[in-house]
Structures are given as structure tokens and as C-alpha cells.
């Protein structure tokens, strides 16, 4: 092999870079998803849990646009119950804790929503 030292060094660096996840997480096996603290004062949300899981950010974004940008503050009615289009007056009435609800999944998958650029997070 010609210039073997340099080439093997380069290959070792390459393999180490590609396998970063393996040695970064080494020795850890328990990888359960974050446990959420569910609300006790309500049984249902504005959408089924599965849809909320997938689309809550889009829903909140639409609400934000409607309320803040077009001034449409009408409530949405689900199964005869009116819900205001509001993060703090609606969502956080039941999901009272940001730390024990929002942040659990967001931290796990490194999502940093900018809700709290404007909203004041509850003191916990």
C-alpha cells in the first residue's frame, strides 16, 4: 500500500465519524419514549389523540394566524362544546404543565417551538 499511513488514518477518521451515534450512545440500552402527564379534568381534546400528536403544531399555527393576524376570535365547537382558539386559555387549561407535557417530547426529539417567544411560560 502506498501512503498507507495517511490513507488508513483517513479511513479510521471516516469510520469514527459515521459511527458517531454508536459511541455517543454507548452503554445505554433503555430507550423508552417520554412519559407524559395526562390531564385529569377532561377526557377528550379538540381532535383525537392520534391526530393531535401528528397535527397539533399545524392546528396551533392556523389558530395563531386566524386570531392574531385576521382577528377571527370565534371559538371552535367540538361535540357541542366551545373551545377558544388559544394556547393558554384552551390547551393549557387541561395540559397545565409545560415541563411535564410539552417539553417531554419536544426535548426528546429536539424540537424548539417558538410559542414561548411571545407567550409567557407558566412558572413551574
Amino acid at each position, binding site marked *: 500500500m502506498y501512503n498507507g499511513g495517511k490513507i488508513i488514518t483517513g479511513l479510521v477518521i471516516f469510520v469514527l465519524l459515521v459511527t458517531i451515534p454508536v459511541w455517543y450512545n454507548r452503554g445505554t440500552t433503555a430507550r423508552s419514549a417520554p412519559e407524559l402527564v395526562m390531564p385529569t379534568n377532561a377526557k377528550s381534546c379538540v381532535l383525537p389523540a392520534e391526530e393531535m400528536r401528528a397535527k397539533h403544531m399545524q392546528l396551533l399555527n392556523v389558530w395563531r394566524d386566524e386570531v392574531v393576524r385576521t382577528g377571527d376570535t370565534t371559538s371552535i365547537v367540538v361535540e357541542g362544546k366551545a373551545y377558544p382558539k388559544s394556547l393558554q386559555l384552551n390547551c393549557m387549561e387541561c395540559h397545565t404543565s409545560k415541563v411535564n407535557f410539552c417539553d417531554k417530547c419536544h426535548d426528546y426529539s429536539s*424540537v424548539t417551538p417558538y410559542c414561548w417567544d411571545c407567550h409567557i411560560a407558566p412558572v413551574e
Partner: protein
Amino acid sequence: MKYAFPLAAVLALILIALIGVQIPGMQYLFGVVVPYLAVALFLGGFCYRVYHWGKSPVPFKIPTTCGQQYSLPWIKQDKLEAPNNTSQVVARMVLEVLLFRSLWRNTKATVYDGPKLTYESSKWLWLFGIVFHYSFLVIIIRHLRLFLEPVPACVAWLETIDSLLQIGAPLMYITDVTIVLALLFLFLRRLSNPQVRYLSLANDYFPLFLLLAIVSTGILMRFFLRTNVDIEAIKQLALGLVTFHPTIVADISSLFYVHLFLVCVLLAYFPFSKLMHMGGVFLSPTRNMANDSRMRRHINPWNPPIKPHSYASYEDEFREDMVEQGIPVEKELAPQPGETA
């Protein structure tokens, strides 16, 4: 129509994953077995190709120079274009790898009536090439959030910067837009430029289609078809894979499996394809050699071991025959005992 076969191949791969994952129990194959195989092929194949290249002799000193070489003291040397020592070569290589300097020199030849041939600078290939490569790099680093727990701050920062425009929800990534634009340009360039179209083969189109399909499924998953794309379950699967305790915890959308399968195909295909320019750029003799052939002798490693054979030793070997044939010799035969009276 050289793009028809690769396009069909990518569509077939999408269908394989889309249909295959519907079969009960096949999630394990597509989510665990195939990724492990693909990464093993990628790393093994990559190292083998580089090792194979490393074993190949370089018979001649062949750096491509495009500037004034090292010469007399009052002639200014172009140190990047005609490097004559290791540090200059390193500087040249770093700029080539990070900034694609050789593509910067790309020209476009056009024939006008007359006939008149003109060459003009054409930086589009450089621009979209570099946009594609850096977008892809950012996207790969961003994906580390699914493989690392806890997520390192630098990955989170990169994600913040990439979604700085704060468009939509989930936030749009700048690199998602740029990589699609760059891939489309690189594909349309192959179609619209007659010379490049003539040169393009199936193995030029296939990676483009494959990457476009990977990028499209990723964008669809993030912004449009979010049902069952459960990021927690996906992260658990990814962490399970890299800690060698793979589990599939929930029903994940088949779109995710298509995305994953296409990435696996890309990884497995990588070492056998032109994509190996990732490793090959470091091993190109025209770039990584110093232009010092007038200062240092480059020994061709192919040279067989030829021992020097001087005339004196030649005559020593054949003197008797030469004398017998009447060929003049510099040194006469030693007198035989008994011949002299």
C-alpha cells in the same frame, strides 16, 4: 431515454417498500435488517474501495497544474495552482474539498455562425453543486437528533439556523428547499445541455432520482402526510439500531419505511457507484501530488528490479565467445596454462 430505466428503478424501489411493509412482520425487515445490511455494505465497501485505490501504484508524477510553477526567485509562483510542497498541496486539497475550486473553472463552449467557437465561464454547475452538497451535509447532521440522546447543542443550533425563516408549522427548513432546487437543476442540466445529455448514463441519473425520492419522502413526512409519522417511535427505532437493541414500538407510517428503505439503498449503492468521489477526491493523483518532479525523483513502483549491467561485466561474461568469434575485446583472455613455452 437513458433516464427511463433509473426512473423506473427508483419507482420500483418505492413500491417494494410501500407494499412490502404492509405485510405483517415485514416492518422488522425494513426497519432493522435492511438498515444494518446497508450500513455494513456502506462501511465495508467504502473502506475496501479506498484500500484498493491505496494499493494501486501511481507510475508517474501527474499533478494537474494551472499556474506558474516554482521557478527562479523573481518569478512569482502560483502556490495553489502549482504546489511544490506538502503544505501547499494540503491548502489546495482543502479548498478543492470545501469549495469545489475545479468546478469554479467550468466553462461553456458555444458555436456561433461563422463558424466561431466561444468559451465563457459557467458557474451554475459550481453553484448548484455546492448548494446540493452543503444542504445534504446539513440535512445529515440535522438527522443526528434522531440518533443521539441527549441531543447535542450543536445539532439543535444547526436546526435553529436552518429553520430561521420560521415559515409554517412544523418550521420549514432552508436546506429542504435548496436541496430540491439543486437536485432539479442538476437533473435538468443533464437533459437540456446536449453535450452533457449525450454523456449521461443510467448511473448518472439513478443517484439523482434516488436522492430526489429520498428528499421528497422526507418533506412529505414532515409537512404534508404527518399521520402516523410518530417522531418518538422513530427516534426509539433509530436509537435502538445504534445501541444494537432494535425494537419497533409502534405502527409507523409506510411513508417512513419508504424513506428509510431508499436511504438504505443509497448507502448500499454508494461504494459501487460514482458517489465514491466522496473518498476518491482525497486519492486523486492529479490533485494530491506536489508539482516537484524536477526536485524529487518519483520512482515508478511498477519498475521491475533490473540490476545495472556495465560493459565491463558484459565482456567478462561473454569474453571467451567474443574472442572465438573474432570480436575485439578490451581485455584479452587470461593466458591458458601450458600455452606459453
